[in-house]
């Protein structure tokens, strides 16, 4: 049976969740395809545990939400679920989020929409155009199926649809590096001051040959739950001996194995050396290593790093990017690039649209931007913004309307974002 819908969303990460829920709230019949058994993407499957990009950049003391609508709703729901508010880091405000809460919140959001069907454990494996509509091929546990849709939103993170339909796409020559995030329990105390000494112990482990040098990319953060930490291991992605390629199965496999190997070694080392870690254990592996950047769409417009640096605003903007450009091109920690006067940048609707196809929108970390701008717009707070706009635009288009930026902004619960400026 071929299922017929108005909007098909490929990928249920933070962008796809926003797109599917917001398209359904406009009354569209929506189908969301996700190959995992839960939503959230990097924010759940890869255990990325803070929402960045939700708040305006500023030196004032109070965190101020940058975008109303879905991003603000997610912030509220997450705060209600974890009981934690935003944390100030220098000029940046971030909201701690827990992957377990994120999965459940996403469940509640999709359940509330009667016109939204989520198809989990389903990988979209092909897309083609047929008489103006899209035909989608999917695969689930040995079954192959088809769907037909008026509009597609590609929120796959990897712009998977682009090569299938022969659309322009690119992969930057020097990509942001991946990381492996894992859960830890059984640590008796984790005072701030102790982090430095733990770092020293890891170096000691490297000196004595117990640990590989890759452990230099490791840092820890409390999860917000009693006794639980997350370890984040920044990797070069070249540990397997080949050039980092997040779209290559061999390289991806090496990344997963290396992440687990280094994490296990580091834990063993700390159990020996730090008394309060003597009973510590790894309590959770991610479903997949964290990928910051891979294939991107080349759309009708391309937001650049220079525009983010200047805090450029656009007539057709659909929301604001507020996270500074956070480069992670090596495993030596972030290199920050802040916009002048901490300005927010508008995200043009044309970065979510592609040439030649009016009925396809893109959202999330693979929208049409350059490598520098991607270092800002990839964060989840901004993925909610682009996901929401893509979902609303897709619903307008499927209903026969003209999805202009002002039409997208006029949607209730979305329309007053300029008040935040």
């Amino acid at each position, binding site marked *: 049976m071929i299922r017929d819908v108005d909007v098909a969303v490929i990928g249920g990460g933070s962008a796809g969740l926003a797109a599917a829920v917001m398209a359904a709230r406009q009354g569209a019949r929506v189908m969301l395809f996700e190959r995992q058994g839960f939503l959230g993407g990097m924010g759940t499957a890869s255990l990325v545990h803070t929402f960045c990009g939700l708040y305006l950049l500023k030196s004032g003391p109070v965190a101020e939400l940058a975008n109303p609508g879905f991003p603000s709703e997610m912030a509220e729901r997450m705060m209600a679920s974890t009981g934690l508010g935003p944390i100030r880091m220098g000029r940046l405000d971030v909201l701690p989020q827990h992957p377990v809460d994120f999965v459940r919140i996403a469940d509640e959001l999709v359940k509330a929409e009667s016109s939204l069907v989520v198809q989990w454990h389903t990988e979209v494996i092909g897309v083609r155009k047929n008489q103006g509509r899209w035909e989608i091929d999917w695969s689930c546990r040995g079954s192959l199926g088809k769907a037909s849709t008026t509009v597609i939103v590609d929120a796959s993170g990897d712009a998977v649809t682009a090569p299938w339909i022969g659309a322009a796409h690119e992969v930057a020559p020097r990509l942001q590096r991946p990381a492996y995030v894992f859960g830890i329990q059984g640590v008796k105390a984790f005072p701030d001051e102790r982090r430095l000494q733990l*770092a*020293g112990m890891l*170096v*000691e482990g*490297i*000196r004595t040959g117990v640990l590989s040098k890759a452990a230099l990319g*490791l*840092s820890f953060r409390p999860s917000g739950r009693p006794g639980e930490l997350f370890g984040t291991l920044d990797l070069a992605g070249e540990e397997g001996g080949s050039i980092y390629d997040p779209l290559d199965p061999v390289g991806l496999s090496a990344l997963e194995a290396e992440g687990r190997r280094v994490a296990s070694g580091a834990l063993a080392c700390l159990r020996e050396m730090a008394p309060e870690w003597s009973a510590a254990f790894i309590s959770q592996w991610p479903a997949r290593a964290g990928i910051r950047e891979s294939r991107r769409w080349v759309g009708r417009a391309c937001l650049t790093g220079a525009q983010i640096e200047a805090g450029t605003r656009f007539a057709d903007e659909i929301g604001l990017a507020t996270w500074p450009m956070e480069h992670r091109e090596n495993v*030596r920690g972030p290199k*920050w690039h802040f916009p002048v006067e901490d300005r927010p940048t508008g995200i043009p609707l044309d970065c979510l649209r592609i040439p030649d196809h009016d009925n396809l929108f893109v959202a999330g970390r693979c929208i049409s931007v350059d490598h520098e701008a991607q270092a800002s717009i990839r964060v989840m707070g901004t993925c909610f913004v682009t996901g929401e706009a893509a979902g609303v635009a897709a619903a307008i288009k499927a209903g026969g309307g003209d999805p202009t930026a002002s039409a997208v902004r006029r949607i209730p619960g979305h329309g007053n974002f300029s008040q935040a400026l």
Partner: protein
Amino acid sequence: MSREVDGIEVIGWLRSEEILMLEEGFTVGDDLFQAGLDSMAVMQLVVAAEEQFGVQLQAGDLTKENLTTAESLATLIRERRT
């Protein structure tokens, strides 16, 4: 290597090793933690200090006090060198 390490040299070294992006005008008394020194940067610092200055900093050396400024870091490196 006979010359004593001082705070100015430490600032130049932190910059050239890309352990920290220190703004122009950063002084030997300014706070390195506020400039972004975190546990990951500290690991790189320890490895790089071994290569550059021939000192093996130990976990016990890595206190907030010792690492707060380029000045205090230079003192630590001098002490561990002897």
